[in-house]
């Protein structure tokens, strides 16, 4: 079955002064797949995420989601268009509760205006209830172990990672970009994460995944792209990537045997 391309990344280049962080990156991500992005440290993976989500402006190139160009839009409009993300180093709203963190993610899909929300008329209160229900169901969906009523900063590491995913899902994304979601997880947590990612894919959300756990990436992804020093050196199915000599050289160093 041939899937439709949902996200088109074309010719993205980013330089910081004289340093070329990303050079002419082209990626086509198909709807409903898990697209893995791997590469050694400093390859430019997170930089690419930062460009896609509007934190950085690319020096050159464009990014389209469902044929709508999002390059250079402010971050909140990119989220609204359907791209949400998590962070390599967890960036929750630490003093807010777990539930509130997810509720913030829901805001982008709400309609009541500022004045209405402050006056808390009937419609606003109903919407508030809907937000709360949705946030609760997302917290169940990602399988948070602790109470969602405690401050996010007091949650365990694994729960914080799950909460970040719930918060990103709350924005009702078409594509969710996960930056090393398995980092620092123990094997049990990693396998729970794998199940969660499969479930997200089954629910029709495309996943763009940066991950260092090669086993997880190879077992999970439909397509994998490899970055090295800001250049895409390979793209293909996991089995193609495993046997690609360029990739082996980038990861292990030295000459291709």
């Amino acid at each position, binding site marked *: 079955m041939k899937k439709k391309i949902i996200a088109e990344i074309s010719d993205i280049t980013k330089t910081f002064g004289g340093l070329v962080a990303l050079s002419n990156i082209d990626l086509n991500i198909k709807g409903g797949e898990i697209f893995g992005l791997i590469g050694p440290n400093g390859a430019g993976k997170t930089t690419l995420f930062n460009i896609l989500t509007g*934190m950085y402006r690319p020096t050159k190139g464009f990014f389209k989601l469902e044929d709508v160009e999002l390059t250079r839009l402010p971050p909140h409009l990119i989220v*609204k268009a359907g791209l949400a993300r998590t*962070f390599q180093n967890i960036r929750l709203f630490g003093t807010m509760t777990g539930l509130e963190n997810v509720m*913030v993610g829901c*805001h982008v899909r709400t309609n009541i205006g500022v004045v209405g929300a402050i006056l808390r008329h009937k419609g606003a209160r109903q919407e*508030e209830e809907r937000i709360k229900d949705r946030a609760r169901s997302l917290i169940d969906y990602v399988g948070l172990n602790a109470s969602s009523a405690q401050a996010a900063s007091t949650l365990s590491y694994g729960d914080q990672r799950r909460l970040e995913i719930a918060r990103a899902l709350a*924005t009702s994304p078409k594509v969710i970009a996960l930056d090393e979601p398995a980092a620092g997880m123990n094997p049990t947590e990693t396998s729970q994460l794998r199940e969660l990612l499969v479930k997200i894919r089954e629910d029709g959300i495309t996943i763009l995944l940066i991950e260092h756990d090669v086993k997880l990436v190879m077992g999970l992804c439909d397509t994998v792209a490899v970055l090295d020093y800001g250049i895409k050196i390979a793209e293909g199915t996991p089995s193609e990537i495993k046997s690609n000599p360029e990739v082996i050289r980038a990861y292990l160093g030295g000459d291709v045997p």
Partner: protein
Amino acid sequence: MDIFLQQVINGLVLGSVYALVALGYTMVYGILGLINFAHGEVVMVGAMVFLTAVSVLGGGPLVLSNSTIIVFAVLTAIFVCSILAFFIERIAYRPLRNAPRLAPLITAIGMSILLQNIAMMIWGRQYRTFPELFQIESYTFAGANVTNVQLFIVGISIAIMASLLAVIHLTKVGRAMRATAESPQIASLMGVNVNTVISLTFIIGAGLAAIAGVLVSANYSIAHYSMGFILGLKAFTAAVLGGIGNLTGAMVGGILLGLIESIGAGYIGDLTGGFMGSHYQDVFAFLVLIIVLVFRPTGIMGERVADRS
């Protein structure tokens, strides 16, 4: 007459006003890490617009009851101050959002001076007296006097602070503000329009300032173009005392500062054997500021350190 109880009552009245103004400082600081030194001038504009609105409505062709005039004049003051604060942020702070900390501090001070001078041009240099819109009644309570105006000031301040806490903790607007206060960048990556939130913070702060301006000029029956300066500094002190960036802290700090000032003013004459009189009351606010900054820079309720990554 019981001096102590009397000073406590005066302190609570003064403190409620400080608290309302301090909230404006603390909200802006919480989100932008900026001390909005023009905030005191917004209080002054609130008082002045109120007085102008009262004289226009009272002298107009329509015969309105005094309470109608008060309500409309207060709403006008809130409206004008909100617009003013919106433009202060757009003109003086937003272009410098990513500039070094010192730059917006300088524009804040510049804004404050500018607003004072504009106010002087519009409303003149003379003290303006507060119109007698209602009968001031005085009650004696355990040997201390309290007026209906004072009761009203404390009552309305408490009601407003409670509603503000409700907005911050129970609505999506408040949630977006708290998220932005923690990290504007992450909030925007979660779909929060940070510029809207910042504008809104200034607008809400200005609304509180406008009400505080009306209350303080009602209490002293006087308004002046320079009244916002010292009031603003004291409210800033209150915000620092409570822990800047912390809403409850601003309320507690405001009330506490009002009490310290009043009680201090009541007893300073006795303590110094008449050498210093009650007009030294301003000394206490700044003494408190210095003591807090030296011994507990995070304030009473502030646990968050000022710098953010």
